[in-house]
């Protein structure tokens, strides 16, 4: 390795070296409790995916360049240079990590392996070894944001088409999808596809909410890539729009990492306090259901339903009960998975791994525990408020022939609002009608 490359890698780790990272690198006692917590290690038994091993690769470099013992007796203290072999290993273990932080929950010292992973990604990017696909997706998002006028007409045309669908479904000719509306109470930050706009627009219109869309979307591949500057710039687009429009709340769609970026990281990255709250759309829908602002049939979903806690919303975002309350309000046959909430198994689809073909094998294998959890519930519908989780569980559904319907929670809510059936009919009435047929 050339001296300049080595200095760049070490300098990058040095910039990340704060008290938190230093503690995580110092305190691991190799108890290996994390081995039973990581879905990838449990499924594959491959050391590459052991959380302690992922962090150990960074620790080896840390000891060599940031501790006296490692500098003077590297062999004794297992201190290493970031050579080609180490960087290859680091790449595989780092970009395969879904960032679920289940290992942190079980670690007796609460070592946040994902925090170490973020330092590892910074080192890899400094070495020119960042994941190419995630980098391209982040750059495409930045380009789109920088040149939004180039895409505005297409986007607005798409919004108008969805608005027509909303009017058709709700039979409400006044239903609308406001765009860039100054003074709206809420800015809804959706994904690029219509699937994340249509159900939300139906619910907002029925609740007579004051809301608006902007030109900017929630997905943030800069976060998955591991570049906080890119991640901040991607999120800055909609955060700046929220400020400009004067909204009271930024409502993030059913997307795990986008919620975590906006709610938990953005203010620290931007070094600025935002003049609005960031909430997840399921917090808003839960509010609407409990306040009676939208009418839902308590027996609207008659199949057995289970709920998957996406790691970025649940364990890393603290939202456990609102989605369950919503589902229970529309589906009497609700059953939770075991374990659940903070102990929920990662489905294996987070961290951008669904976009990286090179990890397909470990990704699908690492879904084994999720498959067993789902089978044990006997549910035929899985409510899941995260795009990456839905992609992964959708694929597991096909591979393992689970016969599941994998749907966003807000889609189930719209189903329970009764637009697909004769208005005003209840689940009981539909059951009776079908029994007659």
């Amino acid at each position, binding site marked *: 390795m050339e001296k300049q490359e080595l200095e760049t890698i070490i300098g990058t780790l040095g910039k990340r070296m704060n008290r938190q990272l230093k503690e995580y690198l110092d305190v691991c006692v190799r108890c290996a409790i994390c081995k039973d917590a990581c879905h990838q290690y449990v499924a594959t038994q491959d050391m590459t995916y052991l959380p302690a091993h992922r962090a150990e690769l960074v620790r080896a470099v840390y000891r060599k360049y940031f501790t006296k013992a490692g500098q003077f007796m590297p062999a004794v203290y297992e201190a290493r240079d970031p050579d080609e072999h180490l960087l290859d290993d680091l790449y595989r273990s780092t970009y395969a990590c879904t960032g679920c932080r289940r290992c942190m929950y079980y670690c007796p010292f609460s070592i946040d392996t994902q925090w170490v992973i973020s330092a590892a990604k910074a080192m890899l990017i400094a070495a020119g070894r960042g994941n190419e696909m995630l980098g391209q*997706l982040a750059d*495409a998002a930045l*380009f*789109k944001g920088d040149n939004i006028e180039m895409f505005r007409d297409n986007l607005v045309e*798409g919004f108008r088409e969805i608005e027509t669908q909303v009017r058709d479904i709700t039979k409400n000719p006044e239903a609308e999808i406001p765009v860039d509306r100054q003074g709206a109470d809420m800015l809804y930050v959706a*994904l690029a596809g*219509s*699937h994340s706009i249509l159900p939300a627009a139906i619910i907002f219109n029925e609740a007579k909410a004051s809301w608006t869309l902007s030109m900017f979307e929630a997905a943030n591949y800069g976060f998955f890539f591991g570049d906080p500057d890119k991640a901040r710039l991607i999120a800055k687009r909609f955060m700046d729009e929220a400020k400009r429009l004067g909204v009271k709340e930024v409502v993030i769609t059913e997307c795990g990492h986008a919620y975590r970026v906006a709610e938990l990281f953005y203010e620290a990255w931007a070094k600025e306090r935002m003049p609005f709250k960031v909430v997840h759309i399921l917090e808003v829908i839960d509010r609407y259901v409990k306040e009676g602002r939208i009418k839902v049939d308590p027996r609207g979903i008659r199949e057995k339903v289970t709920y998957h806690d996406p790691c970025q919303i649940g364990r890393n975002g603290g939202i456990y009960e609102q989605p369950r309350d919503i589902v229970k309000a529309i589906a009497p046959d609700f059953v939770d998975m075991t374990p659940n909430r903070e102990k929920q198994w990662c489905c294996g689809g987070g961290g951008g791994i669904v976009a990286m073909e090179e990890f397909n094998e470990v990704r699908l294998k690492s879904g084994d525990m999720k498959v067993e959890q789902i089978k044990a519930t006997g549910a035929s519908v899985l409510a899941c408020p995260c795009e990456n989780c839905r992609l992964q569980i959708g694929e597991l559904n096909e591979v393992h022939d689970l016969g599941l319907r994998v749907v966003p929670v807000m889609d189930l809510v719209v189903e329970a609002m009764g637009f697909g059936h004769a208005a005003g009919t209840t689940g009981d009435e539909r059951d009776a009608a079908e029994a007659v047929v």
Partner: protein
Amino acid sequence: MSDTKPDLELDLRGLLCPMPMVKVSQNISKVPVGGTVRAVATDAGSMADIPAWAKSTGNEVVQAEKVGSEYVFLVKRVK
């Protein structure tokens, strides 16, 4: 749409954004430089995503158009 026969055809119907862009990105290296990928998607978001990806990666969207309820792209690998 161009009459040029593409080097690779991608059926991306049913995939939700950003997966159409991801699939084009994953497959562009399977055609030679100067070759083309024809992709058909159904998610409206792809009309912004795929051109943005092409611009940021230095590739070229030769054509992008809506045909009925589908979005059809011809992407040329430039490098």
